């Protein structure tokens, strides 16, 4: 059994990042909900309003960090859930890279959208 564990592969980094992103997401997700459902009602959203918000550098950066943190936290969470179920071997490698690709795609498209929302480009 001991041989099995000989390859040293610290997994603590992802664990820590999952917690750090969690701490950030708790605040920003709550803020996001408050702003876009209570302060501004979802039904009243127009491109102009969105543009006004996204043109502020601070807000823009917060939303992009929100996107990146959320994508990592979610995709990593899905991966963890699958490993907990006993996902193993080749399947695991395939799923891992699929998830990495999906996460990267989500972030890339998200940033494209965010940039478009500023209306500057």
């Amino acid at each position, binding site marked *: 059994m001991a041989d099995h564990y000989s390859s040293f592969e610290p997994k603590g980094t992802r664990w820590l990042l999952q*917690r750090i992103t969690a701490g950030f997401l708790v605040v920003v*997700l709550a803020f996001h*909900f408050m702003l876009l459902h209570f302060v501004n009602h*979802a*039904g009243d*959203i127009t*491109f102009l309003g969105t543009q006004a918000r996204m043109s502020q550098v601070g807000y823009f950066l917060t939303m992009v960090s929100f996107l990146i943190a*959320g994508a990592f936290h979610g995709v990593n969470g899905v991966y963890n859930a699958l490993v907990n179920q006993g996902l193993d071997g080749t399947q695991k490698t395939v799923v891992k890279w699929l998830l990495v690709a999906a996460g990267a795609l989500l972030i890339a498209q998200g940033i494209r959208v965010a940039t478009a929302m500023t209306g500057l480009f």
Partner: protein
Amino acid sequence: MSQSYDRGLIEDFGRWKEFSAGMWAWIFHKFTGWVLIGYLFTHVAVLSSATVSGEVYTQTLQSLESLLVVRVLEVGLLAVAAFHILNGIRLLFVDLGIGLEAQDKAFYAAMVATGVITIASIPTFLGGI
């Protein structure tokens, strides 16, 4: 080993009545997590209409928001997010080793708070339709 008997899934979800607080918290956290990451992909997809033009974006969002189904689903999303946030805070405390003996009460508190937040938000979410 070859002759031993494996009782299969009866051991797990067939026994849901015997689950304790920590187990329920884990199940709900996982479920809400799946919903949230699924929503994030959908959300970015819908907002992608902004890359076409401002008018398309406004039109897409307003027509979606005029549907009762969407509004109801949004209430569901709020419930899911609220639970994931509140239980997430509970889990962060557990990770820090704080208040482990109260983890079950913290879960019940998260459930109650989620319920209250959801009910209180219904007028805002369904208003103006």
